[in-house]
């Protein structure tokens, strides 16, 4: 056998140079440059202005609304997304492919369209809104409306990340669990759920991240009331509308920093869990 001619630092696969070049320039032009521009323009703002802009009851209220609504929507999506993914992968029923195709609709629909459609449905005069109103439940033009819109746009992320994980589960594991005396509930809780938990977390994190930045659909259903249903992206637009570029930058950078920290945290948790389940099995 011929000895290796040179150390394979980058592995045996060919095309490393080409793909790395594309990756770097692609990321650079589409992701890193815009962020760098944002951080650069933020660096020109004095720390005093920065704080003044952020420590303002209305801004803080909008941060609270945005993060709570995104979190709420992500939690709902985690539960129902799991159910839907489960139904679609584990059972076969007529029209399954159709339902499966429908999951992607929120990806494809312009967010303004989904916002208007949801508002029409949940407004006091709408189909669902008129049924809920006598019960004293208001969805459109309340924080609940924001959560509904965010559930809609984040839902496919959970389903689509869970589906392959559920489909990959080998039947042997369940059979083994059963033969070792586990009942169906124990099989689910101790065998199935832990193995798809990383995928569930990934999907939920993606849904959460997507919800944080959502603007198009929310502005239609939220009513945009200051202190109550005003989201951070709307405040950014408000600043821009007044040609207050500095104020908009401050909010954008703050949003970016908090989101990044949260996503990092979520990834850390996920990494821990993955390692834990891996080591146990």
């Amino acid at each position, binding site marked *: 056998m011929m000895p290796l*001619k*040179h150390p394979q630092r980058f592995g045996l696969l060919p*095309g*490393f*140079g*080409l*793909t*790395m*070049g*594309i*990756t*770097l*320039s*692609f990321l650079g*032009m589409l992701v890193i440059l815009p962020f760098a521009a944002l951080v650069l323009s933020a660096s020109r703002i004095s720390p005093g202005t920065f704080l003044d802009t952020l420590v*303002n*009851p*209305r801004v803080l*209220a909008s941060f609270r609304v945005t993060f709570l609504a995104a979190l709420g929507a992500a939690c709902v999506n985690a539960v129902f997304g799991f159910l839907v993914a489960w139904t679609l992968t584990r059972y076969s029923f007529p029209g399954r492919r159709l339902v499966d195709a429908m999951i992607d609709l929120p990806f494809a629909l312009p967010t303004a369209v989904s916002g*208007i459609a949801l*508002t*029409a449905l949940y*407004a*006091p*005069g*709408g189909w669902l809104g008129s049924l809920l109103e006598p019960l004293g439940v208001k969805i*459109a*033009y309340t924080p609940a409306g924001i959560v509904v819109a965010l559930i809609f746009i984040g839902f496919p992320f959970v389903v689509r990340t869970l589906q392959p994980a559920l489909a990959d589960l080998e039947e042997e594991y369940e059979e083994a669990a059963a033969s070792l005396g586990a009942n169906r509930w124990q099989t689910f809780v101790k065998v199935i759920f832990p193995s798809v938990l990383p995928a569930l977390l990934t999907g939920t994190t993606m849904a959460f991240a997507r919800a944080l930045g959502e603007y198009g659909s929310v*502005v*239609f259903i939220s*009513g*945009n*009331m*200051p*202190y*109550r249903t005003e989201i951070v992206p*709307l405040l950014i*637009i*408000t600043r*821009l*509308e*007044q*040609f*207050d570029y500095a*104020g908009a930058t401050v909010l954008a950078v703050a949003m970016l920093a908090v989101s990044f920290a949260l996503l990092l945290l979520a990834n850390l948790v996920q990494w821990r869990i993955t390692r834990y389940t891996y080591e146990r099995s």
Partner: protein
Amino acid sequence: MTRKKVQIHARRSVHLIMGITLCVAVVSGLCGCGGSAENQGITLLNVSYDPTRELYRDINALFTRQWTEKTGVPLTINQSHGGSGKQARAVIEGLPADVVTLALAYDIDALVEHGGLVASNWASRFPHDSVPFYSTIVFLVRKGNPKGIHDWNDLVRDEVSVITPNPKTSGGARWNYLAAWGHVLTEKLGDPAIAAREPERPEVREAQEAARQFITELFRRVPVLDSGARAATTTFVQRQIGDVLLAWENEAMLATRELGPEQFEIVYPSHSILAETPVAIVDKVVDTRGTREVATAYLEFLYTPEAQRLAAKHYFRPVMPDITGSDLPAFPQIRLFSIRDLYGDWKTAHAIHFSDGGIFDQVYEASAGKEVKTP
């Protein structure tokens, strides 16, 4: 390093550079497709706000025909429409507008301030302070006027809910807001201009306090704060929310005409604001593109009888007298006060009311956390 290693490294770098080049080429290819192909003749870009889409389509057709007949050079006028503030920002960020026709002077002033795109004397370049047609703020109510809304003070009655967009994001909403403000000053002082001339007089102070109260009460009756005028119209018309919509007269007339007079009717308050929608040449752009002559002719054309007739047809009030006809809508006489009467200019008005911590913010701070009044 051995020769072989050098070769491998070199090949790797070449590949890396090829990758980068490929990526850049694809992206620039995309950009190339986005830009419009250079065609024969001259093109103009008119960057305008939302409700003027149909109006300028008609005016452009007329003007391009006349211009081509006169000069023999084919002319194409492109239109761009959107929220007035958003449009101004697009121009600041590089949208090559030859002319801007926006909803309020504040947005054109922004083009002076940011990047000096427009000369500061823009308002004096064309007749009537560069305002070829104007509008006012009226009330749109549901058919039969079930809540009996006839004037401004009816808006703050307990059982009334009002739809108006957010003045921080919508130019039209700023007109609504200042119309309400000016109403109180007119009612208390007789002439709102007294407030601007002698701000120290005690009765002026009193009137302004009353106006602040009125605005606070008014916005407590606003259940939804839409981000733009069209969105507010949708909320009122399609969602059936609210008893009265504060709207541009041209939008209200369009809504009653298009949705059928059996659904809505217009109520004219006893006085309202002179909503001036100005036009300007974007000096920096026309000088680079060499389109100053045609851009000037285009804006001057807006003051000709035929363009004024088209404006009236699309429910904008013409500035020229004697633009009447059986095919044109009748504009009821209404007492109008202007921004000049209230504050001298838009910048002052904006700083007092809509800047951060301004009166509009204070109104919401005062009612923060309190439930909106819903009848």
